């Protein structure tokens, strides 16, 4: 459905993505994990066309970007725009007439307040709800769980399950492995701009153990805490 072929990206001499080739199929949920700065956000930006890149992104759609709901990690809201008006902006952008905004405000956000005054988690929930109001086929969610409370965390997980059931393709990046385990069909590990490992559901536990043993333990040991 979506194919990345030899995707590479560099900022000057700094190579962020190296020759990434991946495929994402309809009705599956994919997790992208990696350390900060490993290239997850850049990968998403290249896929959506927000960053120029080498290599190809092909899909079954004529204009891929028009079918993607992208939740960026670095959210920006105008200082004098309310949550409701942000919804309106995103609906207008895709020619969606939405008359049930209040009903679909499932996170109970104060829609008539300026969105710039929202907390980090509220901004995330606003932006996520806004892309869910659009008729997208692919959802790229960059750190959807960042800053959100436990209850909203569960709602987001349920939304991802429902999207999968509807045959949508979902890509998520997250630092919280438990949420990825719960939602994803496949996880791709990105290290230094390269896909170092791709695992299916049956290997998630092994991957988690491996990450704990070799990455976490080894690094914390270096502190020599006494």
């Amino acid at each position: 459905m979506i194919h990345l072929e030899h995707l590479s990206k560099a900022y000057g001499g700094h190579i962020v993505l190296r020759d990434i080739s991946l495929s994402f199929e309809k009705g599956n949920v994919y997790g992208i994990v990696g350390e900060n700065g490993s290239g997850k956000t850049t990968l998403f930006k290249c896929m959506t066309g927000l960053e120029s890149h080498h290599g190809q992104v092909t899909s079954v759609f004529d204009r891929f970007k028009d079918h993607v709901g992208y939740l960026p990690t670095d959210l920006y809201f105008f200082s004098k725009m309310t949550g409701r008006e942000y919804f309106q902006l995103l609906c207008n952008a895709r020619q969606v007439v939405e008359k049930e905004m209040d009903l679909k405000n499932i996170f109970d956000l104060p829609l008539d307040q300026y969105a710039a005054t929202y907390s980090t988690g509220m901004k995330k929930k606003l932006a996520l709800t806004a892309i869910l109001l659009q008729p997208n086929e692919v959802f790229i969610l960059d750190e959807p769980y960042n800053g959100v409370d436990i209850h909203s965390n569960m709602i987001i997980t349920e939304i991802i399950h429902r999207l999968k059931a509807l045959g949508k393709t979902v890509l998520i990046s997250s630092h919280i492995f438990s949420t990825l385990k719960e939602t994803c069909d496949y996880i791709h590990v990105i290290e230094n701009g390269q896909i170092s490992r791709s695992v299916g559901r049956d290997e998630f536990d092994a991957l988690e153990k491996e990450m704990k043993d070799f990455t976490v333990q080894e690094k914390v040991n270096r502190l020599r805490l006494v």
Partner: protein
Amino acid sequence: MLADPGKINFLRHHFSPRDLFKIRALENLFVILPFVIILLIHQEWLVSLAVMVISVALSLSSIGPSFNFAIPTPFSRYPFEFLTGFRKNLVGLLLAVFLLVMAIVYSNPNLGLFSVALVLLICLSFYMSSEQAYLVWIHHLSPVAFLWHKIRIAMVHALILVLPFAIVCLSKFPDHGLYMLIIILLGLLYLVTALLGKYAFYPLTMNLPQGILMAISFWFPPLLLFLIPYFYRRCLLQLQPILS
């Protein structure tokens, strides 16, 4: 800018209330200093003292963080330039209303025409800063369709703002219709130029030579005949990678 909520919050977290007051009072005094000097030169002792007292007193105020009431606007259906611009420039728009009232009270048609021009100038300022690429990317439109959509919205919204002023002004000074028409038409042309100028260098802001060209066009409007097509072609080039 001096009472920016973010800045005040930052200072509040780093300084004691006493030091915060000192910093803000000094900032305010620096800003009014040139005006106070002119008042003193003109021997306006009491007024200069009053200005200083008011500026120091204002350093105690903090309207930003607690003021979260969304000012209603007629632009909610199609956010965002006019919607946010209207709220940010409410004081300027109220000044235009004041000038219009003065024009009617004192039967001064030039002041009335100026109030209409002022509203159009304020509208131009809505297009001076660029939005994040994401907010352009979300549009399900080609670069050409995107630009025409933006131009159409800008025209309609500008007319919503300016027509009440024009109608009131014309009802009092009906023989100034031609001047009014010229001002509105030129204002709309400049608005289109500002809009195209914003996307002509997107995601960067307009560079100096193009800014100078735009400034010159205010003194020599025929320059718009060159600027508008030039900016339009550049817009298509700049928007192509984001929207295609």
